[in-house]
């Protein structure tokens, strides 16, 4: 049984959150991870997510929103199932990051922070993701893809499309 009746999260995530709030010297320390893990499950940080996390941490919803708006990975609107994040920061820029981003815009037919009509992909231009020596790099959700070219990027996108067909 979750600490919260009528939790909006899956039993696994609710159980994880029950534990997470107990491990820190101050419960509030669980806030940033909770927001991210909730987003992983729900797809975005919805009003209901904010409300339940506030309740779990004895915070005002305002406190939660205040923190939520600070972190660039957290979003308050749904995105595609696979969020394609292309780095164009300096090391990637030098090895084709912008070309890669343009390529994705054209093949997916969407711009920065937009989602394809079928809801499968979103696209985002991101800052350095810590893969500079394997540039140009991109992340699809949490998966890293290194040393990309437009052709390799197409193959990467195809692997996610193939997952959907199964």
């Amino acid at each position, binding site marked *: 049984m979750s600490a919260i009746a009528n939790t909006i999260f899956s039993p696994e995530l609710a159980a994880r959150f029950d534990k997470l709030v107990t491990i820190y010297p101050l419960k*509030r320390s669980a806030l940033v991870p909770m927001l991210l893990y909730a987003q992983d499950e729900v797809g975005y940080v919805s009003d209901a997510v904010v409300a339940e996390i506030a309740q779990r941490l004895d915070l005002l919803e305002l406190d939660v929103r205040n923190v939520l708006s600070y*972190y660039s990975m957290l979003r308050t609107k749904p995105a595609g199932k696979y969020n394609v994040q292309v780095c164009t920061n*300096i090391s990637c820029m030098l090895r084709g990051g912008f070309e890669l981003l343009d390529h994705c815009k054209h093949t997916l037919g969407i711009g*920065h922070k937009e989602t394809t009509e079928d809801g499968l992909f979103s696209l985002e231009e991101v800052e350095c993701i810590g893969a*500079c020596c*394997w540039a140009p790099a991109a992340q699809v959700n949490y998966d890293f893809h290194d040393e990309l070219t437009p052709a390799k990027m197409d193959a990467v996108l195809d692997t996610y499309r193939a997952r959907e067909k199964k």
Partner: protein
Amino acid sequence: MPTLVSHPDEVKVLSKRFGLGATNIDRYVELDGYKATQQAIEQGPEWIINTMKASGLRGRGGAGFPTGMKWSFVPKVSEKPKYVLINGDESEPGTCKDHLIFLNDPHAIIEGAMIAGLAIGAKTGFIYLRGEYRYLLNIMEKAVADAYAKGFLGKNIFGHEGVDFDIITQTGAGAYEVGEESALMESLEGKRGVPRIRPPFPAVVGLYGGPTVINNAETIANVPHILLMGGEAYAKLGTERNGGTRLFGISGHVERPGVYELPMGYSLRKAIYDVAGGIRGGKQLKAVVPGGSSCPVLRADEIDVGLDFDQLAKAGTMLGSGGIVVLDETVSIVEFALRTIRFYQHESCGWCIPCREGTDWIKKTLTRFHAGGGNKKDIDNIQYIAENMLGRTFCPLGDAAAMPILGFIKKFRPEFEEYLAGARVANPLIQIQPVGEHELAGAH
């Protein structure tokens, strides 16, 4: 998977277990793992701190503060619990070294944190990874769970009565500024990553108000190796006041980009031309950003310098995070400067005015300049704004934004002037968009 590279000039201390399967705890123990921690328990805090001081190890997070000295600042007696906090936010553009440590040798970070804890009298350590590093967080969490299962973490570790240490792993959620140590503590306390005023310094009032040691992941992963080999032996690998080796990430226009472990003081020229194989496609070198995006640029004729904190400071730049970004002759410095300031403008937390407004104005001016709408005063204006940010911001991010911009203008002013006169980049990387086409206008 990141490619592991190697070169005969490397001196592998920290990276010696890379690629050897050391994420597995039994394998790690076979490779001398957890010996240093047991030694540290037996020898005690004073020995640890003296060894660290003798090693000459300086912080690998950017500022290069001597680690042994940092630990010695923590008061012996404290009413509030003390903490160790490992900074794995790794977000400085050009930097991906901690990535490889988390991937290849997570137990070295656990050990380093435990030893830091023993040295200062902390019983809890936090390991904070940037949110994008989820797969590395999973590796780290598995390593922590394995260490608990073996009795290496928790209560009475290695059978020593009363010696306890716990580790809590934490994820961020996307923010460069959270790598700044006081903003990191705010984030870990569940708040916006806005920095704290200092003094008091974290060694006295840190996480949850308790004395806290904050170290970069690479710094801390060095610690067990130093205890095993001895402080003096480690120091000798490097140069005066710059002990040991360092992970240098060489990226950009080189033949063999990668993370290489080189002795401190190693020649920048050799790092580029020998270790990383020289400039890609036989092109000419134009410039080098020697330690992550916040370090002032060096021109091609300035690379006969040793890679340590003091020699680079003398050369007017910094060793920073050890991320060496190499630019060939085709790069437009105007574009490169624009991409750099776009990053800092995006990451400014907005708390203080010189940084929030300064980064924004420089970005706006450079964007217009790059698009061909520059005017005569722009170059001086950008310089003026950047100079007025230096030393006037609440945290060092303001300096980190201003310094590279000043470097670009100082070292490549003629290029800005030619650009203004109509010279253009042959193949612009950053698209120049007519106003109104928002959908292709990029992230910022």
